[in-house]
């Protein structure tokens, strides 16, 4: 975290050195705090009026109270999963109905006029989730964007009643399991652990999802210990195992710099506990000299 603060400070210097550089800066330049979890991306979105907010809020009151009632009921019943067995996959997302697709948000660089990639998440003919689109690394000629070419799908953040943010608690699991049918491309599997402080808003743990291609389904079982930390697309020098009780989003992104259409069919995303997997973190945690990795 401290490395990232220093990184931000370094940006401060870069900005103050030249008075005009903030006009052409592509990265974030406000330093000690970030005003917006979206990094300013939805800044231009018109805000609804206060009266509309009150009206919509009252409309949602009923469903929120129902949700709260269910939560209380679940709390009193207290029926947790007591045994996690090897080979049992607890499915978190099954992409078999249109309702399941509404839990996901797709984004691509063309959404913000930062590129020409497009994507969509739909239902395939066989009744599975189908993440398709086109990756294009063509950069728009606005002199601001340097790189382009990504498509992403991300799950909605879990929440409790009355719009309170929540987390997934996956501490009992050791693997994420996906049943997919891809097209031979490699995709990035992202698990966001959005923390409380602004500096942890962009913490994403990632690993590669390789696909075989062809007409056969594949089951990819990826241990959580393999996921590495990056923030705003930058792999972090100071790594740590993924905090599985703080998972907020799961995403799959296509951005392998290969121009052309992609096609990823997803049956489910699930979790599994495998007691034979003892690795805690796949990457070395050397003690480094001072000021090389963090402080």
């Amino acid at each position, binding site marked *: 975290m401290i490395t990232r603060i220093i990184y931000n400070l370094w940006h401060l210097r870069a900005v103050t050195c030249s008075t005009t550089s903030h006009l052409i800066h592509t990265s974030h330049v406000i330093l000690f705090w970030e005003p917006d979890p979206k990094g300013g991306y939805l800044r231009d979105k018109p805000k609804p009026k206060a009266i509309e907010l009150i009206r919509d809020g009252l409309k949602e009151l009923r469903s929120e109270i129902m949700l709260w009632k269910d939560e209380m009921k679940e709390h009193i019943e207290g029926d947790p999963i007591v045994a996690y067995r090897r080979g049992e996959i607890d499915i978190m997302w099954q992409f078999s109905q249109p309702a399941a697709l509404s839990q996901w948000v797709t984004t691509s660089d063309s959404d913000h006029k930062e590129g020409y990639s497009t994507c969509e998440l739909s239902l395939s003919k066989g009744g599975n989730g189908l993440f398709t689109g086109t990756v294009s690394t063509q950069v728009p000629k606005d002199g601001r964007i340097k790189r382009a070419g990504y498509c992403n799908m991300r799950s909605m953040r879990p929440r409790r009643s009355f719009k309170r943010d929540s987390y997934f608690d996956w501490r009992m699991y050791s693997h994420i399991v996906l049943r997919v049918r891809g097209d031979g491309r490699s995709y990035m599997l992202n698990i966001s652990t959005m923390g409380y402080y602004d500096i942890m808003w962009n913490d994403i743990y990632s690993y590669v999802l390789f696909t075989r291609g*062809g*007409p056969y389904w594949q089951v990819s079982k990826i241990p959580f210990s393999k996921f590495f930390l990056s923030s705003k697309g930058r792999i972090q020098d100071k790594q740590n195992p993924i905090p599985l009780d703080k998972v907020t989003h799961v995403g799959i992104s296509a951005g392998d710099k290969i*121009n*052309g*259409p992609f096609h990823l069919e997803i049956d489910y995303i699930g979790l599994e506990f495998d007691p034979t997997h003892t690795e805690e973190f796949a990457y070395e945690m050397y003690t480094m000299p001072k000021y*090389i990795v963090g402080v």
Partner: protein
Amino acid sequence: MVAYIQGVMPDPDMENMLINIFGRRGHPVRKYWRMMYWMPKFKNISPWPLPNPVPSTSLELAKLALERMSSVDLQSEVSVYQTSDIKDSIDDTWIVSAQSPIQRELLDAHPHDVSIYVEGAFRIWLRNASVSYFILRADARPKPNLPPQDLDDVGNLRIPFFEDSTENQALVRQPSVHEQEDGTIFAMCATGTSSRDSLLSWIRSLEINGNPVLAKVPVLFTSKSPLGAVIPIDKCDSAESTEHTNLKSGTEHKDD
């Protein structure tokens, strides 16, 4: 740091130069160390490794693609046929076909009056090159019609000591990997032209090479490619990607 985008890896000499110029805490040195830490870790993790760069000839690419796709069944054989060996073929091109003994058995056991389909073209990517492939498939086998069971129901517990445990157990053949939920896959191929004539030659080649049942089973050629319209991409590296021609004929024809 354009070096790694171009595929050029710095060596320890470069490290020495960077240390001499920027010092041990310099940003370029730390960038070099970062690269040397992470990049070799991820270089060879793909379960389906590919040469880098991939071959530029479409035949070699097709062979790689078929080997990769048929890796689900270790007994699969990838063979190359020539359409010129088939009588009356119009195209003169190659066919790379993949089939395993299990698929041959499945095809042999397929009822003669139920038609099977040639479907495609589908796309597979090998690094930055794409190959179009076709599959020969039948509709999925119907699932065994077992009475629904509630495994969580403890209302009717039985004592297994005094009764035959095999009683009331339906026997179901273990499905092979080729029996997917959306169809049974009998073979896969990629041809030099992706034309319908080359696909017909593929069926004839399969018939000669161990699938005599194809002379009797009706084979339907689908007229539409699931790939849809080809999207123009300005910067697409067309030299290295094998472009396919979408099948254009309008009607399905039955061929037996």
